[in-house]
């Protein structure tokens, strides 16, 4: 098990390391704790969502409504915070409400996918359209800035442990927790099993519907947490702030080696994939690359990474000799 996990993440890790080395030479600023923490912090929200997306993609699904769900939760908790008293309990309440809202929205996706058997991409596409429309209609795109937020939330957003922002800590906690779920809980193993072989999973008594509802609800839960992280990160709520983010999230997951058809995917890989995207963004400015060429670089790096990864994968498959040929 361990050896193959390593090999799957190897190529992406290699790319990340190669990029880091290059950037270190290009810009001395890159390899400073300050910069690396900034990169981590900037990509924490995407990271949290990508962790959840990993589970969805392992089971062979996809959720393009994550950004919409996150901004819906952002807006709701933002509105709530406008009226909340400046008391510690407000924070607790927030940490209760946001995940619950996320779970609710995620569960709707899950039920439609599992029970009505509509392909995940279609359900979530529809949901995205609906949620985005509603959010825009209700908020009219109005910013909610931190002036009226409870002070305790701002304090929370500014917490640092050994210089590491609480947002990064949330991301790390989510990644670790999800890794634990995948590795050590029954439901986590069922997620992997379903990704590996749906038919077999049914035969050994795994409830496919339940697992699907779980992964989409879990995705929702993480979207709720991501909403808190996002609000803590920007210290304001911009209903349009997450538009289009779902593609970045998916890109992070698949760059991390998850197979879009299901079965393959690890939390470690996803974290690396998100970091790769983040480092590219960061590096483009640090390397002082012309503004207009930045996207060209990003596109090329994505294409190279996915092609390289796929070629590696094909080679490893070739090497998996099915037949013991006599010498």
């Amino acid at each position, binding site marked *: *098990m*361990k050896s*193959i996990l390593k090999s799957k993440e190897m190529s992406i890790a290699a790319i990340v390391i190669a990029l880091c080395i290059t950037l270190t030479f290009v810009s001395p600023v890159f390899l400073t704790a300050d910069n690396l923490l900034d990169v981590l912090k900037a990509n924490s929200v995407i990271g949290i969502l990508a962790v959840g997306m990993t589970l969805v993609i392992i089971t062979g699904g996809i959720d393009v409504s994550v950004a919409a769900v996150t901004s819906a939760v952002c807006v709701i908790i933002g509105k709530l915070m406008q009226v909340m008293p400046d008391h510690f309990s407000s924070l607790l309440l927030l940490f209760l409400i946001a995940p619950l809202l996320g779970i609710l929205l995620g569960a709707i996706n899950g039920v439609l996918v599992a029970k009505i058997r509509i392909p995940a991409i279609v359900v979530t596409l529809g949901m995205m359209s609906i949620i985005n429309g509603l959010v825009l209609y209700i908020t009219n795109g109005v910013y909610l800035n931190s002036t009226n937020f409870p002070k305790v939330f701002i304090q929370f957003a500014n917490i640092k442990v050994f210089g590491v922002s609480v947002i990064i800590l949330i991301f790390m906690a989510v990644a670790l927790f999800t890794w634990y779920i995948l*590795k*050590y*809980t*029954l*439901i*986590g*193993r*069922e997620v*992997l*099993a379903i*990704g*590996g*072989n749906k*038919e*077999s*999973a*049914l*035969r*050994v*008594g*795994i*409830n496919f519907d*339940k697992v699907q509802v*779980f992964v989409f609800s879990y995705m929702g839960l993480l979207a709720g947490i991501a909403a808190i992280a996002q609000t803590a990160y920007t210290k304001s709520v911009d209903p349009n702030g997450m538009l289009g983010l779902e593609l970045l999230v998916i890109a992070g997951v698949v760059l991390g080696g998850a197979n879009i058809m299901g*079965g*393959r995917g690890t939390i470690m890989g996803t974290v690396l994939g998100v970091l790769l995207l983040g480092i590219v963004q960061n590096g483009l400015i640090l390397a002082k690359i012309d503004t207009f060429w930045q996207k060209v670089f990003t596109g090329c790096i994505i294409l190279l990474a996915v092609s390289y990864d796929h070629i590696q994968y094909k080679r490893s498959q*070739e*090497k*998996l*000799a*099915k*037949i*013991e*040929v*006599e010498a």
Partner: protein
Amino acid sequence: MSDYLLQMTQISKTFPGVKALDDVRFEVKKGEVHALIGENGAGKSTLIKILAGMYEPDQGATFLFEGKDAQINKPIDATLKGISIIYQDLSLFSNLSVAENIYIGRDSGKKPWKKVNWNEMENVAKKALQELEFEIDVQTPVEKLSIAQQQLIEIARALAFDSKLIVMDEPTSSLSAGEVEKLYRVINKLKQRGISIIFVSHKLKELFAVSDRFTVLRDGKYVGTYDAKELDEDQLITLMVGRKVLYEKNTEKGLAGQTLLELKGLTKAGNFKDISFELKAGEIVGITGLVGSGRTELAQAIFGVNKPDSGEMTLNGESIQIKSSEHAVKKGIAYIPESRKTQGLILRQSLTNNISLPILKELRNGFGLIKRKKEVDLAKHYIDTLDVRPAHPHRAAGDLSGGNQQKVVIGKWLSTKPQILIIDEPTNGIDIGAKTEIHKLLRKLAAEGLGIIVISSELPEVLAVSDRILVMRHGKIAGELDIAEATQENIMNYALLGSKASTLKKNVQASKEVSV
């Protein structure tokens, strides 16, 4: 009263348009090995799936387990009652480790947050594997295992479950003789522990070696349950097919014409090594050996979809490298793969669309558009000549039975007017009547001048159709036999040992093995 572990009565199952099971009864005693037999399509797998909770039987079924009324609506219900099922196509998770594959399902239905205990998992797995005398690192991912090894994992899973009833659907299909023997030993051990086993197999010899009783199904109906001692193989076959059938060894030698195909030292790492033989027009060369001996890989190399590393191939005397399946078709090579449903046919498409696919190019008019009428006529032609039923060119291929599907695949390739036909497991999953039909068809095609390579694990089949037989073992040709000198014994010796010499124990010699 209850020395019965399982009693299923009045089991019927209706699918849209088909009655798969009709008032079947099936009773298994504690601690017996009970063979469930019947032709393909007799309803064995439907019955097993009902037992497994994958299908729900029609109204009126009664189901007793350990004398108590049992409700099995979902797979988990069966698992919890102690029923394990080893499916023929295996239920493994290639992305998970050996240990997990053995352990999986044990916790199904428990709280989702239940902690997975990796130590316990590995211990359970190790213990089960020990019992099978199969040594392997339990952390190896299953995708790295050979098919035979995977089958053992599947058996280990059932062992690890402490099941009361284990269903084995064709468990030996890819095991070597030694492994089969191990399996027999395990079965005997399980029996002594009071575990019941339902054994499904086509190898009659094998059935008689392990089973205590037989239940025979025919056309979805219950024929009867018999004690193993009261029957012999011929009687059993008669019960299964309602008539006596056996196929004869081929005696008419084909008229080997000029050489069509010649391979010299064809090699691909991890697939096959140093393959040399020739195929002449009008002859049928049978290639046999255990599953996983490299036969299919070799066939695909000739067909251009599995490129060899080295070696030479000549077609009609000219050296050639087949670059793609398209190239192969152009050169008159046809390949009928082993798995009809996933590789041979596009199930959701119509018979016409399937048959015409390789030759669409020739069905175009001046504007490059497909001449639909001509296409349908072509399909009809092959449907008629091959007697495909139902003879409806617009039906989806998936609606047909296995034998008819196979005829469609053959029709598809005959439409290309090939000079070489490679056919992998031509009668896999086809009932016996259709089998002989297909054998006759192959002989007829050879007589018309086609060069045919038949790949098959079923020795009687190889003997029934071939002019020459190549036996593969571990990716190499272990031996070549002319039909005149070929017997099941000497083929098996090559396949298992790589030589003609017979040193095998009696019970694996498969002297009179008949496969249905």
